[in-house]
């Protein structure tokens, strides 16, 4: 497959897929569509307006931070992972706690599609569109791998959104802490594999494995809810 064909396919996956997924899930339900947009806004506010500028300020202005990044091959990825989990899960908690009034399973999924979808569009989709316009020469395989990674992480974001939503709805702090901890561990291992110099497919395989783990959680919650509904009907 040529580089440009791969770019077109990857742009479709990373831009059109999340939009399509949100539209299909929402159907005619405007509230659910709003929650998908709220998920997108939460990512943009907590990453693009808060965390990225903060990291950029630190890496431009703080010599201690620059030296820390150069001399701490374990602690530096850990600090980055902790900050990502703190800002993303913190943002998710605040939005789901104070802005989301209806907390059905599908509402959490819609929020997660928006959250992961806008990340996919911003981090890979838009840069790929600029590659398409400039006709830059790129590796087709790498482009498709990065697109696949966005699909995997979108599923992970859906799972984290469902986890935090359940934590908020059922007032279970451990579920919110579990999302924070799993997010930190997920980011740290993926980053550490890259820093340690493993081939890119190793970290992608890890992300794929983690996606299946989180997909299992989503299915478990869904089946659990259906089970409770059936018991309710039988009673």
């Amino acid at each position: 497959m040529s580089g440009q064909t791969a770019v077109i396919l990857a742009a479709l996956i990373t831009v059109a897929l999340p939009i399509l997924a949100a539209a299909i899930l929402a159907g005619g339900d405007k509230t659910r569509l709003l929650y998908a947009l709220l998920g997108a806004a939460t990512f943009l506010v907590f990453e693009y307006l808060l965390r990225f500028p903060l990291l950029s300020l630190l890496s431009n202005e703080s010599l201690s931070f620059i030296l820390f990044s150069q001399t701490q091959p374990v602690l530096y990825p850990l600090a980055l992972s902790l900050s990502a989990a703190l800002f993303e899960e913190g943002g998710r908690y605040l939005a789901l706690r104070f802005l989301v009034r209806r907390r059905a399973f599908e509402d959490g999924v819609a929020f997660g599609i928006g959250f992961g979808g806008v990340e996919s569009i911003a981090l890979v989709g838009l840069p790929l569109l600029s590659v398409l316009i400039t006709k830059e020469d790129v590796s087709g395989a790498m482009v498709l791998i990065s697109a696949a990674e966005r699909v995997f992480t979108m599923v992970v974001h859906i799972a984290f959104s469902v986890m935090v939503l359940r934590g908020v709805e059922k007032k279970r702090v451990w579920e919110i802490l579990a999302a924070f901890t799993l997010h930190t561990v997920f980011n740290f291992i993926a980053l550490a594999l890259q820093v340690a110099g493993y081939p890119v497919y190793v970290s992608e395989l890890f992300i794929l494995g983690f996606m299946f783990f989180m997909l299992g959680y989503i299915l478990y919650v869904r089946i659990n809810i259906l089970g409770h509904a059936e018991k309710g009907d039988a009673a």
Partner: protein
Amino acid sequence: MKKSAAALLCAAVLLTAACSPQAFEFDEDAAVAAAKDVIDLVYMLDFDAVCALFREDVREMVSAEALGAAVAPILDGAGRFVEYTKAKAVAYNDKQYGEIIIVAVQAKYENEKLTYTVSLGRDFSLVGLYIK
């Protein structure tokens, strides 16, 4: 209570690790001065002199032409040198380059601030140079 203690313990472990002692003793002032000497040569676009400062095992991997092509455009945009604003150095045991001193120096230019990361051997021979 247990949860708070665990969180505090984690924070303490991270802080202790982050503030761990230097990998080896070195003269920080001398290291910063050596790094500034390198930066001065870079500013004068004397890339042959910069290459001559590289440690022997690294020198064969760099050339004055390649260095100039990478660095000159950055300095063109920065404008006239004004002053060094801050500097800091740490000792580090690198897997590839052995015992090195990493010096971060921030320099103010007419149009922008640049941060140099200069890696030096224990004898202050140049091992690496990065400009942001």
